[in-house]
């Protein structure tokens, strides 16, 4: 009898988390993410689900119980399917499209070029990753972190480097959350006090017809050029058409509200859970984090420097304040908010938010196009 109890207890212990725990499970950083989200309020809608997912993914268990995210038949595995097959990111893009107002861009079209320049971060990271001996596919997946777009990063990494998806997604979302910390020093370093005071001409009013035509024309122009970006671009502009058409309010509300919330919860939780210590704690993950930071820095710098270069050809009140150059990365609307805050440090009456929203939404389009190019080259 005693032997039975002893054996039963030992067997139970072997199934429990205590019996399977390793140092790797303990040092995973889920709690840090949750703390950053709740206490610092850095992108809480993303960091809290990801942080909790990291905790779920790192509860130690015996293989074969069908509970882990990588085990066939597990509930988490079914939810993770949307990440692996890449259908969550386009759904998020549908919601983003239904939330985004492209008026700032339509009224001042030249700002769109900043969104293109900032994509250099992606390719700078790609080149650096190749130098560090990553394969071209892995380098492409790492480079996309520089687009500052979580769904795009997940979409691309699920296609090009599925084994690195956890690290890439966590890295992308972390740096997106840290946009207010990473970008200001670079912006200050690359601009002069006079440049920071530039006042931009207020944007003109945009008609309803322009807003409706914009998504339709954009999808034709961009998808014809880069069809591989269709899942992201198509959903982005479809969502925007739902919003701007004025006749599909219910669909737009669903896409920008409940749908995007549900997918955000699922994608955050499952991406977090995919960072199991056994897969995540590798030297490559550290390199991914370093390269991600590097690509963010380059993307920000490219945007700011491009505005400075562009200003050489502009006169009078057409000049652009280089403090909106950082918004070329597609972290909407955080990057634009950083422009506003930085601008107001030097002139409290200079409101750059709406101007910065132009390159910011252009960054979303630019990163989706860049993702399409990476796929066409590498997939």
């Amino acid at each position, binding site marked *: 009898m005693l032997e039975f109890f002893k054996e039963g207890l030992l067997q139970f212990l072997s199934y429990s988390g205590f019996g399977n725990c390793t140092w790797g499970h303990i040092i995973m950083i889920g709690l840090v993410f949750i703390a950053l989200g709740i206490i610092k309020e850095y992108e809480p809608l993303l960091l809290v689900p990801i942080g909790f997912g990291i905790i779920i993914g790192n509860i130690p268990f015996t293989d074969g119980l069908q509970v882990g995210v990588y085990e066939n038949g597990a509930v988490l595995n079914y939810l993770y399917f949307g990440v692996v097959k890449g259908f969550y990111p386009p759904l998020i893009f549908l919601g983003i499209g239904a939330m985004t107002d492209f008026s700032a861009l339509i009224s001042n079209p030249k700002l769109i070029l900043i969104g293109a320049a900032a994509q250099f971060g992606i390719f700078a990271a790609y080149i650096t990753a190749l130098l560090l001996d990553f394969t071209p596919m892995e380098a492409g997946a790492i480079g996309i972190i520089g687009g500052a777009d979580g769904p795009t990063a997940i979409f691309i990494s699920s296609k090009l480097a599925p084994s690195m998806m956890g690290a890439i997604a966590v890295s992308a979302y972390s740096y997106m959350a840290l946009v207010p910390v990473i970008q200001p020093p670079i912006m200050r370093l690359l601009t002069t006090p006079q440049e920071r005071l530039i006042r931009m001409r207020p944007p003109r009013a945009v008609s309803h017809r322009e807003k409706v035509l914009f998504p339709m024309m954009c999808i*034709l122009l961009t998808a014809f050029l880069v069809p591989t970006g269709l899942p992201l671009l198509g959903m982005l502009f479809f969502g925007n058409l739902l919003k701007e058409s004025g006749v599909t309010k219910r669909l737009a509300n669903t896409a920008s509200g409940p749908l995007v919330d549900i997918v955000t919860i699922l994608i955050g939780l499952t991406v977090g859970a995919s960072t199991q210590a056994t897969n995540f704690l590798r030297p490559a993950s550290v390199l991914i984090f370093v390269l991600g930071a590097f690509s963010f820095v380059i993307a920000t710098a490219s945007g700011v420097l491009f505005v400075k270069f562009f200003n050489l050809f502009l006169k009078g009140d057409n000049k652009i304040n280089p403090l909106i150059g950082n918004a070329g990365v597609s972290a909407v609307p955080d990057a634009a908010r950083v422009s506003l805050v930085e601008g107001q440090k030097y002139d409290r009456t200079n409101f750059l938010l709406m101007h910065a929203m132009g390159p910011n939404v252009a960054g979303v389009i630019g990163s989706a196009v860049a993702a399409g190019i990476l796929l066409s080259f590498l997939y």
Partner: protein
Amino acid sequence: MKSIYKYIFTVVALFAVTATFGQSVDDLRLNEMMIKNVDNYADEYGRHVPWVEIFNTAYNTVNITGCYLTDDTTGLAKGGEIPTRWYRIPTDQKMYMPQRSFLIFYLDNSPLYGPYHANFNPAESKTHYIALISANGKELLDIVEYPVELRDTARTFGYVKDGVRDPKAFKQGKREAGELDYLGEFTPASSNETGEKISKQDKLKRDDPYGIGMAIISMAVVFTALIMIYIMLKIFNYVTRRATQKSKAQEQAVTPAKAMASKAGEEDDTVDGPTCAAIGTALHLHFGSMHDEESEVITINMPSKHYSPWAQKELTMKRNPRR
């Protein structure tokens, strides 16, 4: 408003033209052919007949419907009736050849067997070439002269490197040495290059080890895409401005009095200081929850009990059905 439709029409037309140019039949090649087919590739009826493989060398879809396959080019560029040994490729879903794809046609002189069966058989031909001709019957898209012995040999003949030919020499009716030859293996509907295959990854690593080439191309494409949107938005700007100016001018021309009134109205639109202050105060009160109208009243007085039909029991009871 008509001008807007004009611009939309221009853009759509531009797309149509681009798409047409993108689908160029010039990129088609007669990549591989077999005349003495004893026991090799069989058609859908299980017959071993001569075949030719068309290869789309382009990186886009090409519609080959309407092009001609023939072993007799004497009718080329003459117009008029279609020569008897010209096989017009019919409409079929598979005729839209995807990028870098292959399509097999059987040269068995049995066009009734289906769209992939030509109306001539090179084994019975006086010539020893096969040609692909454009839909207008005037351009020679590709022509492959094969050795006469091919008719007696169960081997395939074609491009050593898939569809690679010297365009200058081809225009002059010549061929570079080694461009066409007997092929080591027969590879219908697949690449003729049967040597060691290099993956896309390895090729990229070999050709662009530092990724600089790809970075330049990619940035160029990103800029192109966004510049196209920029141009479109510029057109939007221009059209909107013109439409606004036009409607204003029309209004002023038709009713000057109305125009004066609207001008006066515009002046009235400017908000003066006290109004701004009033709006600001109202917003401040609203957002600070300091509104003066409360939804409920707190009092020490005994509230009077008013009559309410909700309290009447007979109204809540079920009525008897009417007869």
